[in-house]
């Protein structure tokens, strides 16, 4: 019976050896392959997210705020420049008003000239009458009035000249007055048109500036909203990059497992003594790099816990501060 048990035990051990010899290398190679595939995928993902993070950071830092400031500054400059154009128009209109005033004064002076010409005509006519009367008297007096008749004749000629000249002055003054009136009228009409144009221009400029200002405000708000969204996206991407770094930890854990499996597989293949179980466990433990591995090892040794319970227990125990930074 004991011999049978021993034979059965030997058969069992031999079967286990044979199985281990074949299956452990396969496990190891599969784990290694899975590790390589995961590494490659995570590397690609990490690169993509890191590039995204850089692009978003560049967009945040580049010229968003600067564009908003420039837009507001441009709006203010436009308001100032357009206001100065309106002021120039007003000044031009004021100068035209002054010109119209001058023309009116000129028209008044032309009228005075006309009055003076009438006075000269009247004087010439009266002088002519005096000359006629003088000629009559000279004729009545006879020979003694000859000298007087000559003087009367001269006065009569002077009177005619003065009358002709006064007439010419009147005609010229009338023509000048008509011309001045025309200029005055045109200037008045032009001034009225300018005033209307100014009023229209002021309205149009105000409307355009108001619309421009409204649009600029919308753009600034949209830009600020986009900046805020970009900041949120940047933070999310940074969190993804942090999460993807788990690959490095997984890779180290899998490498440790493969190494241990390969060592065991070599001993089995060479039919060497595989040694003490505790020594194996200690050697395996000595290569741990993360707290989770130490916790799993401790839980395994203290009781037969399921993987999920070990995982839950590991998660509930104090975790190292990821990203923990110590300055020396």
């Amino acid at each position, binding site marked *: 019976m004991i011999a049978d048990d021993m034979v059965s035990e030997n058969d069992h051990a031999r079967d286990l050896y044979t199985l281990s010899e074949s299956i452990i290398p396969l496990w190891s190679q599969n784990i290694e392959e899975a590790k390589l595939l995961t590494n490659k995928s995570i590397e690609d993902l990490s690169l993509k997210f*890191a590039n995204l993070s850089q692009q978003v950071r560049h967009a945040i830092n580049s010229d968003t705020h600067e564009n908003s400031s420039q837009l507001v500054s441009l709006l203010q400059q436009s308001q100032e420049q357009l206001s100065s154009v309106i002021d120039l128009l007003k000044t031009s209109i004021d100068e035209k008003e002054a010109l119209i005033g001058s023309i009116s004064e000129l028209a008044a002076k032309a009228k005075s000239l006309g009055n003076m010409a009438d006075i000269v005509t009247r004087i010439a006519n009266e002088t002519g009458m005096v000359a006629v009367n003088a000629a009559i008297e000279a004729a009545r007096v006879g020979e003694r009035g000859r000298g007087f008749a000559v003087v009367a004749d001269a006065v009569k000629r002077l009177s005619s000249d003065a009358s002709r000249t006064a007439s010419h002055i009147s005609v010229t003054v009338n023509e000048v007055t008509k011309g001045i009136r025309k200029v005055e009228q045109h200037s008045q009409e032009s001034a009225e048109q300018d005033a209307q144009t100014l009023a229209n221009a002021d309205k149009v400029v105000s409307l355009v500036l108001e619309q421009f200002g409204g649009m600029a405000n919308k753009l600034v708000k949209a830009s600020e909203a986009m900046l805020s969204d970009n900041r949120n996206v940047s933070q999310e991407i940074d969190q993804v*990059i942090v999460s993807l770094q788990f690959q490095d930890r997984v890779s180290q854990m899998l490498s440790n497992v493969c190494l241990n499996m390969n060592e065991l597989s070599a001993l089995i293949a060479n039919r060497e003594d595989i040694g003490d179980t505790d020594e194996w466990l200690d050697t395996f433990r000595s290569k741990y790099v993360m707290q989770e591995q130490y916790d799993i090892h401790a839980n395994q040794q203290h009781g037969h816990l399921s993987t999920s319970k070990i995982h839950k227990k590991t998660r509930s125990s104090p975790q190292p501060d990821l990203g*923990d930074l110590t300055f020396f």
Partner: protein
Amino acid sequence: MAKTIMVIDDSASVRQVVGITLRGAGYDVIEAQDGKDALSKLNGTKIHLMVCDVNMPNMNGIEFLKASKQLPAYKFTPVIMLTTESGEDKKVQGQAAGAKAWMVKPFQPPQLLNAVSKLILP
């Protein structure tokens, strides 16, 4: 002129993430995949700071740290150890070997940049 940082890690994805984080902040980056590779690239180039993993094949981070401190050009170059190891004994080893800081992975890019800005050579 941009300052140069050497990043030493056997994980290509970690080198990528650290590299892009640092380049995005305006630094030039030289990458090495383990301590031995890093030593071969320390050929007199001015390095203003190093970010180094601990567990690497061929030459681990602690061994590299000790070797680099023997080189006159790099004796005072600050080194940040960036590692999954959080145990105190490893931290003590790192400090004794000459590390200036110990950061546990995974890291937040702004946190790394903050540490770099505090330690990098002028």
